[in-house]
């Protein structure tokens, strides 16, 4: 793990434990901070057509609504408080944050189905292209919220992240229900494959016997 990398395990763990209003408040503060540090990004976002995207991190209990464009600064709120969005973006938190930082190619994630987009795609395309112009380092942005305690906060966050990463490596990740379902499906297909092979082998033997009998 690089010292500039966002501590994803720590962030995910904290967001799972935090009450929704606190998550919402934290997200809004971070967004405001990004706006202050990247005025060009906010100006470019404001120039887009007004859109909203429901962002659903698959490994968090929270869902967010991100609104941008139409001349207004972007807004982030918990989706439960907002109306329906024309677009839904789903994926693991780590991939979604990597997209925000421009560290990973969105099309590749989409081709491989690591992220899923439903509804009006133009909102996601416009947002992604605009974000990709900016160089956001989420860790820097988050730590700048701590003001003079930023350096100490960064050191503590990275230490905790390494610890959590180590524990995860040692004891294995808590696997999401969807992955466990995939395992079940794989086992079922393997069993079916084995049964078909057996059946084919039996048919083959029967065929040979018939040929032997008729020869």
């Amino acid at each position, binding site marked *: 793990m690089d010292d500039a990398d966002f501590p994803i395990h720590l962030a995910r763990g904290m967001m799972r434990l935090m009450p929704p209003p606190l998550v919402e408040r934290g997200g809004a503060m971070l967004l405001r901070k990004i706006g202050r540090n990247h005025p060009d990004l906010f100006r470019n976002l404001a120039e887009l057509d007004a859109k909203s995207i429901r962002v659903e991190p698959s490994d968090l209990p929270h869902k967010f609504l991100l609104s941008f464009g139409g001349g207004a600064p972007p807004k982030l709120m918990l989706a439960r408080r907002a109306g329906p969005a024309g677009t839904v973006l789903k994926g693991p938190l780590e991939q979604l944050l990597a997209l925000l930082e*421009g560290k*990973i190619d969105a*099309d*590749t994630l989409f081709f491989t189905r690591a992220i*899923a987009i439903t509804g*009006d795609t133009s909102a996601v395309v416009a947002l992604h292209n605009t974000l990709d112009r900016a160089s956001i380092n989420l860790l820097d942005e988050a730590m700048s919220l701590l003001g003079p305690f930023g350096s100490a906060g960064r050191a503590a966050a990275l230490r905790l992240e390494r610890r959590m990463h180590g524990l995860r490596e040692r004891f294995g990740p808590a696997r999401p229900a969807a992955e466990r379902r995939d395992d079940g499906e794989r086992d079922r297909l393997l069993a079916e494959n084995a049964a078909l092979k057996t059946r084919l082998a039996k048919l083959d033997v029967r065929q040979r016997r018939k040929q032997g009998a008729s020869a």
Partner: protein
Amino acid sequence: MREPTYLELVCPAGTPAALRAAVDAGADTVYCGFRDCTNARNYPGLNFDLKEMREGIDYAHRFGRRVLVAVNTFPRAGDVVFWQRAVDNAADCGADAVIMADIGVLDYATRRHPNMRRHLSVQAAASNPLSIDFYREQFGISRVVLPRVLSVDEVAAVIARMKVEAEVFAFGSLGTMVEGRCYLSSYITGRSPSSDGVCGPAEYVSYREEGDQMVSCLGKVMMNRYDKHENAAYPTPCKCRLVTNGQASYLFEEPVGLNAVSILPQLKAAGVTALKIEGRQRSRAYVGQVVGAFRQVLDALARGEPQPEAANDLYRLAEGGKETLSAFKKGWR
């Protein structure tokens, strides 16, 4: 300007950040376009305004790299001002060349900016020496981007009989085999890559989940249906899955990406000057990864070393997660 090693590496940039990523990763040349319908990647949030173009060209020139500006769509009837202005702006910003397809735009650039290098876009679909000679004689083009319809032998045969540099596509998404003449998407959306710079305009693209499957649509027309673990692709009409005789298949084009990294020595031997990486619509992460991998391979080939494994994983970035040599190794005619 820095002299290219082995073959000139021409890389895409949809944003200033991607331009910097391309230069930093080792591109010899970067191509980009203005934020309007004058280039073939006119998507929301993409491309350069005047200030960004000027700054991008300055950045590239500081490192001895070139910047080409694509003005390669076809003007609409009675609406040529965008294209004229784009050519003027490219010249004003200090672009090293303008890539064009339309004969009217080429003529305008030739008369107004005779000292600016002119490249013939792949959109012009010039694939034989007669056609390329016409563009050279009439508009003084210095380079042609060859359409992705030629085998390596055909590329060599064309280059042997023409007097301009040849640039060929080496990596990225593939289009239909009649480049610059595709209006398929306009039947569905009213917009096409040839005149509007968009194939599947994002505002017409939608996806929905149906059980374990994902369905992609362009406008109200279903383009594809993907099983749970199947790689997805752009919902463009040429790469849609069609059902004929009860069998679903890719009749026109399969969603696979071109990767010519394994035949670079053959392309050099054929007389190719420059390799083009497709993907101005892709992110700066894609640009950095692809350009970096090709840079390593080209430098190794220039030193006479075996090809490094840097480009082996690039298929992961390809549309549909699969790659092909396409027409370079075509077995059809």
